[in-house]
């Protein structure tokens, strides 16, 4: 994901088309905020890649949290404030120990595109786990962001390092919370797994 950037693409024609033909709304997720998180566990820490896609019917509600001055654009400051809001709604633990999340990248599409239901906000957070002991560990992630309008996906990324092996994943029913059990073998060669990317 790119370094903290606010994309400035203008897709006004898309919005106008959508407004002209509102039947597109029923054809796709319209009243839900999809929050899809990919959890990449690495020897030195954890990365969370989060894709946030508001449906048409909830886009304004989400935008109210982002474009605070209602000027139709998302400033760097507004993007940072929203990232902080999201970060505050996430809890990441390894073996019960809470990890501090740090925003390492974000990409915001313009409000006009978000209102179409096709726009996705991307955010990436990292957390330093500190030295992990050899053996089994448990990562727990909870997402409490905009719970009344959201649906969630939480998945472990296929590890890029042979020293990390995912052994089990568990989620609650709506995937707002998940646990990933993994084994850390520091003596195994740190080579990228075959075809594994995250």
């Amino acid at each position, binding site marked *: 994901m790119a370094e903290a950037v606010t994309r400035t693409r203008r*897709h006004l024609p*898309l919005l106008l088309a959508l407004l002209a033909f509102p*039947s597109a709304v029923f054809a796709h997720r319209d*009243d839900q905020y999809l929050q*899809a998180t990919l959890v990449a566990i690495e020897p030195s820490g954890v990365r969370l890649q989060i894709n946030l896609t508001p449906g048409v019917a909830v886009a304004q509600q989400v935008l109210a949290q982002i474009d605070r001055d209602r000027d139709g654009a998302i400033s760097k400051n507004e993007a940072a404030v929203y990232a902080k809001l999201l970060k505050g709604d996430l809890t990441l633990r390894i073996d019960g120990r809470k990890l501090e999340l740090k925003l390492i990248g974000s990409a915001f599409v313009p409000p006009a595109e978000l209102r179409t239901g096709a726009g996705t906000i991307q955010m990436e957070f990292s957390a330093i786990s500190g030295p992990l002991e050899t053996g089994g560990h448990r990562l727990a992630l909870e997402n409490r962001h905009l719970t009344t309008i959201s649906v*969630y996906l939480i998945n472990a990324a296929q590890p890029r390092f042979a020293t990390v092996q995912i052994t089990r994943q568990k989620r609650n029913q*709506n*995937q707002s919370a998940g646990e990933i059990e993994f084994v850390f073998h520091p003596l195994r060669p740190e080579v990228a797994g075959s075809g594994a990317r995250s």
Partner: protein
Amino acid sequence: MVLLGVGRNSFAQTNTTPGAPIAAIVAASKKFLATLDDGQRGKVVFDLKDEAQRKRWSNLPTASFKRQGLRMGDLTKPQRDAVLVVLASALSPHGYEKILQIVEADEMLRKSSGGTMFGRDEYYISFLGQPSATEPWMIQFGGHHLGLNITLAGEQRTLAPSHTGAQPALYELEGKTVRPLGRETDKAFGLLSSLNEAQRKQAILDFQMRDLVLGPGRDGQMIQPEGIKGSALTENQRQMLLDLAGEWTGIMHEAAAKAKLDEMKMNIAETWFAWSGPTEKGSAAYFRIQGPTVIIEYAPQRLGGDATKHIHTIYRDPTNDYGIKWQKP
């Protein structure tokens, strides 16, 4: 082959044998390009390394996600027919029929909703690179619920990544019931019903899957597999799994489909099958097939209506999306 649609804008039967060798696909593509004027040609051919165009595909309708290339509704009848010959030459008979049925479902949606963003006219064709019998190039064809990315490199070719979907996923046309993704659905329930209780316990995930995990826009990501591993299936169940996957790999013409299935067969012990949702036949449930060289997801869309009638699927190859193995750096 089923004749779909009538009238000026119909997606109709072609007289080309589907699944032709590379020379025929190149010839069909060049023939289509020859029907275009300079302005149209400038819009339809992109550089093979144009990453933005390569990734410009989606499940969404064109009003929500803007494609580039040439829009079917902007082409003349001979030009549209030439596009269909390109598709028919690159795909298997079943694959070509499935694509037509997906497009026709969108035409049904247009008629029932009045939304002009839907329908046969709203599909786009584009090429990345020049049609060649030896060098890599791509054909892209897509619109709402369809994103075909066909990479060709000599006699090698791949459909990964591609999106298929349908809404409605069941409709009547010319007195016949059409289910564009019906075989996928039936074969998945067939495989599930073949599992014993212990196998089901492994295969069935105890949480909701509300969408595709690796759908359009998720290039380069790969998730940890879940569910039941191929090594825990019987030989018959492994065959059923391959047969199910064949509904995606088999969209391509026979030789390419066979090569892909042979590859999957070699990796079958390392290929996983996961299920989420109800298990009653015909209900709206998510499933996933994931192996070293394939990931397939099938996700009914719960949007207040009947989720069995609105389906999204994705097909990827984590080792060779966009034929990356065959392209020069």
